[in-house]
């Protein structure tokens, strides 16, 4: 073992603490919250929430000093460019997305926890949320398969618990069980794939894999290819790509609403980030295997998601959340398109920028939609789409904001940013010559418009019955305002997110 032969001083690597600060701070905050929970009296528990919000904000701010994107740590001795943790631009953007998303989730959670009146244990809730966020923040920076898997699990395991955290709610625990069982199976499959890849390449570092995978023995080719595809499964599961999407509607409907929002954004971010890292960074040479596979997945996912959403009856309990769940499946399909295109393009790294840009738009807008759903859900707990009827009369501004979010998701003006995000995705597909996928996506955009616009139209109808008037708590207002401002600002200056689609992020 060469490492052991080296002087003892190098046994402990020097760690670039600043580079790992964002996930590390989040993780520390999680621990701090857990410990503090033991000592805080019941009445002071809401303080934990604000600690978490502050920690997430601080972690996000810690991304600022890293903005040059040239740091890395946990490198292989002697190979300064083979690192397990790299804070390049890609990692930073996704970390920003994850931390920002978690921050918004936290804002939603503050209200949700208050409203739950003790049915949600606060200390555990904040600890789990922050740990999951830490894992999700770690994942985009991970550059070896072990870190990747660990980060994936760190992000997922607390999420299972979060989904089933509500005391005495069968739906919640059911959802958690389904989520959990599907997820661990997918992880096992993914790990199997990792072991295959490891078997043929002998390394877990992504860049090394990329270099070695080109020279795999002919006899081991099939094993490698199988390994590549199996590895994708775990991440595709998190992204909720069809046919790995079945848990999504059930889980979203059962989970506390902020957690559904969290899963729909951060969960997906974890999934597609892993996919991007695995495909574009680790297996670029095997694009012939994963390119078409992802293209088919993308087409299937968006179709399934959209037709599923199409069929939600507005009067059904939880139909709003289920609709958002199905729509998030559909959106996942769009997110996969540029990754699939990367498998067909000459320069894979530029086209994944489209995914990043789309994800940023989607995160802001979808969290906004969930925030409004949380607001409406306070008055009418059944979370039906039909509850939104006449929202404009009772809360004009909220209705307008929700309409804007939905149109952004649909990709139709005045939701300019949604439109441009779709344009970017389309152009990635067209650029890569994936015409058929672009056409499938085009049809899906139309199908999706149906339910988004139907919902939008419902907002402006004459209301049924007396509107429930509740005071809007400040955190919720802040979340809605933040997302709305973000969406409007992005609509005016799409360049803010679309810049990522322009060039390579690595």
């Amino acid at each position, binding site marked *: 073992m060469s490492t052991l032969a080296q002087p003892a001083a190098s046994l402990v690597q020097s760690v670039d603490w600043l580079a790992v600060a964002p996930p590390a701070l989040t993780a520390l905050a999680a621990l701090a919250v857990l410990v503090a929970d033991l000592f805080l009296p019941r009445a002071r528990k809401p303080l934990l929430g604000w600690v978490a919000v502050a920690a997430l904000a601080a972690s996000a701010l810690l991304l600022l000093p890293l903005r040059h994107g040239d740091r890395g740590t946990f490198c292989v001795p002697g190979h300064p460019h083979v690192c397990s943790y790299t804070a390049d631009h890609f990692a930073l953007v996704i970390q920003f997305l994850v931390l920002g998303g978690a921050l918004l989730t936290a804002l939603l959670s503050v209200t949700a926890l208050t409203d739950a009146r003790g049915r949600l244990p606060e200390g555990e809730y904040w600890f789990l949320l922050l740990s999951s966020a830490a894992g999700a923040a770690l994942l985009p920076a991970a550059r070896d398969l072990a870190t990747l898997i660990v980060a994936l699990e760190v992000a997922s395991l607390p999420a299972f618990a979060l989904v089933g955290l509500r005391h005495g709610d069968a739906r919640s625990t059911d959802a958690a069980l389904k989520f959990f069982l599907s997820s661990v199976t997918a992880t096992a499959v993914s790990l199997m794939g990792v072991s295959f890849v490891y078997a043929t390449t002998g390394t877990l570092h992504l860049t090394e894999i990329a270099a070695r995978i080109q020279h795999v023995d002919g006899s081991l080719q099939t094993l490698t290819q199988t390994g590549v595809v199996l590895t994708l499964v775990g991440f595709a599961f998190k992204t909720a790509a069809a046919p790995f999407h079945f848990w999504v509607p059930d889980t979203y409907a059962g989970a506390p609403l902020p957690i559904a929002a969290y899963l729909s954004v951060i969960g997906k971010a974890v999934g597609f980030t892993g996919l991007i890292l695995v495909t574009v960074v680790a297996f670029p040479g095997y694009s012939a295997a994963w390119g078409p596979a992802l293209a088919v997945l993308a087409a299937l996912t968006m179709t399934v998601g959209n037709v599923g959403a199409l069929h939600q009856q507005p009067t059904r309990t939880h139909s709003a959340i289920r609709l958002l769940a199905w729509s998030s499946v559909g959106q996942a399909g769009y997110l996969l398109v540029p990754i699939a295109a990367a498998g067909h393009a000459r320069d894979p790294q530029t086209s994944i920028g489209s995914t990043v840009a789309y994800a940023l738009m989607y995160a802001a807008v979808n969290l906004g939609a969930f925030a409004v759903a949380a607001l409406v859900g306070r008055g009418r707990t059944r979370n039906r789409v039909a509850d939104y009827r006449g929202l404009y009369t009772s809360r004009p501004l909220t209705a307008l904001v929700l309409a804007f979010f939905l149109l952004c998701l649909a990709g*139709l003006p005045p939701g*300019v940013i949604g439109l441009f995000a779709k*344009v970017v995705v389309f152009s990635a597909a067209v650029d890569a010559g994936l015409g058929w996928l672009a056409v499938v996506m085009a*049809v899906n955009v*139309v199908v999706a418009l149906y339910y988004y*616009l139907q919902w939008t139209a419902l907002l402006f109808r004459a209301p049924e019955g007396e509107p429930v008037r509740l005071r809007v708590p400040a955190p919720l207002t802040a979340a809605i305002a933040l997302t709305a401002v973000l969406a409007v600002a992005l609509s005016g200056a799409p*360049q803010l997110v*679309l810049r990522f689609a322009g060039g390579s992020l690595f």
Partner: protein
Amino acid sequence: MIDISESVMQFLLAFVVAAPLLGALAALLPAPPGLKGTSPEQAVLRHGVTVTGVVLLAAIALAAGFDHDHPSRMQATTDISWIPALHVRIHLGIDGISLPLVVLTALLTFLCALYSYVKPPAGPAPKAYVALLLLLETGTLATFAVLDLVLFFLAFETVLVPMYFLIARWGGEGRRAAAWRFVLYTLLGSVVMLLGLLLVGIKAGTFDMVALATDNGRSLTTSVQVVAVLAIGIGLAVKSPMWPLHSWLPDAHTAAPTTGSVLLAGVLLKMGTYGFVRILLPVAPDGFRTFAPALAAFAVVGIVWGSLACLALARRGARGDLKRLIAYSSVGHMGFVLLGIATMTPTGVNGALFANIAHGLITGLLFFLVGGLKERTGTTDLDTLAKDTGAALYGTAPRLGGLLAFGAVASLGLPGLAGFWGEMLALFGAFRPAAGLSRPAFVTFMAIGALGTLLTAAYLLVVVRRVCMGAAPEQTPRLPDVRGFEFAAWTPLVVLTVLAGLWPKALLGLTDPAVQQFLAGGTR
């Protein structure tokens, strides 16, 4: 005509595009204290009239300041980088092709706002109505003013949501289904169009229409052009609408409120044909040549199809709806526009552009008139209106009847009125299509198209017979004749129809140089 400095022109154009958007936002706010009016409804409707009126004035100023000696030159151009990542620039400008459409749009929207001011559409509060109307105006004006493919698409899409709500909220019977069909159909078309636009932009390396037109398809291979034309063409053809992609139109028109129908027919359909001229012809000439015969064939089928459908509707006992009938007539008229474009000759394209404007004026007028008729009689169903012999509108409301007859006559393409020149030039273009297109095929199309004018005349006059004429008017109660605000809204359309018919140079003089330059390869 008037010498206006270029920077003022730039401002005017940007103002024309942006003012309705700002107005739409302002319409949602509560009225400021000084402008409250008698009621909030009245205040917001007046706001609509004011904004559209100012935009119309700006558009007229733009037309006045336009250098009529060089209509082929892009004027009042603004070119600002917006999204460098996508190479999208805010590139605005007008030339002889877009100027008439800009003015027409501003005019029709203003007239609609004016009409609604006195006669608010039946439905929910007019606040959202005005906002949507203004949003619609932004979208349409932007479509005609932008010179960037992606922006064109953005503008093209902007009209969908407002129009959807206008139909679904202020429409008549069956409005919801019609609105859905409209929005899904056109969105499907435009998304496919987006694919084509992206293909062009990616392969040519720029989304700038002027650069692409100057390039004239030289940097695109023929196969790329073919695919692009197919994709873009489908999107535009849905909007135009081309047979057999027209089936959203009759429903949408039938269900839409009067102003919605006017704008739909007068402005929205033009966006499709404008796209054909502005994008497809100069950007992908080779690809267009491949599809030109097919386009012409579809156009001609559309002409005959629309006319025959109208004849079927006009027959006694067919329970034909007047608005539906005019919608089908639009299919026929837009067939002439498409035929003109498909010839790829300056004559045909000039004719298409002329027919565009003429159709906007005349069909807008017709929808206004039918709206007025519906308001008076409570129905647009021909059988209910006409009973046994006819509704005898000449007797019960002579001016309205006379105007309706005028509209019908203008619509059937009577020489001396606006409808004629477009049809004539489109047919003349088809008589001698561009080099490389099959002359026998096009001459056949021309002959069938010319026969279509006969069918058009037939159904329009049947309509006049059943609505304006009829026995024993003294037994039916007299209807209120044309009122002041109706005169105000309709007279401009009538006057322009006559003027364009008698002095076609006003339009053709603008479009001809620009079209010549487009077709000759786009270079100056």
